[in-house]
């Protein structure tokens, strides 16, 4: 098993499949009256969060607690971090406290890579800047597999602000590893340069959402921050929504079985219409539940559990 999960590229097909299978076993546990496993008793998991992200932190916290780990939440606010302590000094502190795993959320791309060079424990990337969010990709893949029965050969459209999206990068890498065919959709300003060469040869890019929908098994809508229009990535929220938002008429272009995903938090009415978000195709609430199972699987396997 790998030691760190810094990028979805750290996972080969075999490892990724093992994590998804393990997540399935963890999900079965959630149906029981006692939802707790003793596996990580006596182990310490630190949630080191430099950005506010209640949902991701709670998800990791629930995952670690269900495995009986001791959880320390270390948030940038109200700690030495806000007094200007460097990441390295914080890392050495966590090291001295005997952290077996550090789950890090950080606004700077690559912060988990730096952290991994300073601590002995496992480092799990819970979102770094505009780089990656590998556990989100795992829970997304798990959700697709649960709903559609497979990943190999699926057509997945990832729509929106790919340029600034750590979710998109991790999903492209993981889904490609697992045999899905990904198409990135968005205005050209929000598709990063040389993206196929960078992430996956054969990765497709489209600027036209309507042409992609009829063949899509999965549409993943990314959060688009309205601030982007101040920086001329697109003219207005209204125009963005018209060209790239998923509304009910567009949803009807999808095949019968297709699902709609969103990593949250949503801008209802911007990238996704309320009737789409609340439709039976939407997996948005499932994704949250699956997040706990996927993160349990990651903690379990990285900290030496056996599947």
């Amino acid at each position: 098993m790998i030691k760190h999960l810094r990028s979805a590229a750290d996972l080969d097909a075999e490892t990724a499949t093992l994590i998804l299978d393990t997540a399935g076993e963890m999900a079965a546990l959630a149906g029981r009256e006692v939802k707790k496993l003793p596996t990580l008793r006596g182990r310490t998991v630190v949630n080191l969060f430099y950005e506010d992200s209640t949902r991701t932190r709670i998800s990791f916290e629930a995952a670690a607690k269900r495995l009986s780990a001791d959880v320390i939440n270390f948030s940038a606010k109200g700690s030495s971090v806000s007094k200007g302590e460097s990441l390295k000094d914080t890392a050495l502190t966590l090291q001295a406290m005997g952290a077996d795993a550090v789950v890090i959320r950080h606004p700077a791309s690559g912060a988990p890579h730096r952290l991994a060079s300073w601590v002995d424990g496992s480092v799990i990337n819970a979102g770094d800047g505009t780089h990656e969010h590998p556990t989100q990709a795992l829970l997304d893949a798990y959700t697709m597999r649960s709903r559609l029965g497979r990943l190999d050969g699926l057509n997945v459209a990832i729509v929106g602000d790919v340029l600034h999206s750590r979710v998109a990068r991790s999903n492209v890498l993981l889904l490609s590893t697992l045999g899905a065919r990904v198409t990135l959709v968005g205005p050209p300003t929000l598709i990063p340069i040389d993206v196929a060469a960078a992430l996956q040869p054969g990765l497709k890019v489209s600027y036209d959402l309507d042409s992609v929908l009829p063949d899509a098994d999965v549409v993943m809508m990314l959060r688009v921050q309205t601030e982007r229009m101040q920086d001329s990535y697109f003219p207005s929220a209204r125009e963005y929504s018209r060209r790239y938002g998923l509304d009910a008429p567009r949803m009807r272009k999808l095949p019968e079985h297709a699902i709609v995903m969103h990593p949250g938090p949503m801008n209802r009415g911007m990238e996704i219409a309320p009737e789409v978000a609340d439709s039976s195709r939407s997996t948005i609430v499932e994704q949250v539940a699956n997040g706990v199972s996927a993160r349990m699987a990651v903690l379990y396997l990285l900290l030496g559990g056996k599947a």
Partner: protein
Amino acid sequence: MTSYLIKGVSILGGASADLLIKDGVLATGSADGAEVIDAAGLVALPGLVDLHTHLREPGREDAETVETGSRAAALGGYTAVFAMANTSPVADTAGVVEQVWRLGREAGLVDVQPIGAVTVGLAGKQLAELGAMATSAAGVRIFSDDGHCVADPRLMRRALEYVKAFDGIIAQHAEEPRLTEGAQMHEGEVSTRLGLTGWPAVAEEAIIARDVLLAEHVGSRLHVCHVSTAGSVEVLRQAKARGVRVTAEVTPHHLLLTDELAASYDPVFKVNPPLRTAKDVAALRQALVDGVIDVVATDHAPHAVEDKECEWAYARPGMVGLETALPVVLSVLGEQWELIAERMSRAPARIAGLAGHGTDLTAGSPANLTLVDPSARRVVDPAELASRSRNTPYAGTTLPGRIVATFLRGEPTVLDGKAVK
């Protein structure tokens, strides 16, 4: 003053010869009483001249001082360095440039020639007192806002024109600021993969294209700092073919390293302009050979540990380079001594109008020279650097060539590979 007889040295790779140093100049005649230096197997080069050094004093003496930077320079084979103006306070007045110049004289290891800021506080709003700096004791001839681009085209035009009065030259840090907001590394495949904001090549090329046209229009001299892209090389090639008075420099790191190194997220590889692609590296090497690029300049940029031992986005850009420049160039060009002397000594001295440096090693010339052992190999160890900072991108790399001795006006600053003071 001690006389020295450098015995059996190969001048620029030529046949074995002796060099006699008397009273600070190269001499002929009797070597009686001269201290003999056995230079068998060593190559003599005119003392190297660096057009682009950050000495950090005043302001960041924890990262480098004029003295420690001078020592690093001497150990790298340099006899003159041009100190960039982005100190604190900024070298935008006669007072600050004279202070740096005086500190250089006191250290006495290389000639430290201050570069003056183009604009007050490097703010890009108002011309600094360029004339006062030119007529100060420091005799400033090169002006640069390096670290910042003189982005305002009108201000750049005026600066180019104004310095003609004292044969000055504007050294431009070519970086279109709006195209590089938040930029962290070369924009391309690797920046996309790493999720780091891109620094597009066009942000450099567009400014160089504009500036060569401005320089042509007003008949001024322009020097382009740290050229880093294949596209910039083409812009310069065309401008030179038209007769524009433009010169350009490339750093050793842009001749050797690529953007793939950012994948470690180790900010020791973060630099501005950023490391580019293998295609750019190939174009820069060719341009250096062709003469489209005139000079190798180090952009020696020392940084304190805390400014590098952090997240990539929070780290300061820059690499130390004085002590590794010649070895890197040797590894890139091979033992083309004539070319190396031209690009690292004569051309920079000529561009700067610096008398007494970059001269041929013939009788009567000031004895500014360095002796290199081309057969030596050295593994770069950051802990061994004379610079006060350790941010070398070459840690653990084996590089060819060892600087054995350096002489500044006949006085050794380096002997047996060690600084004499």
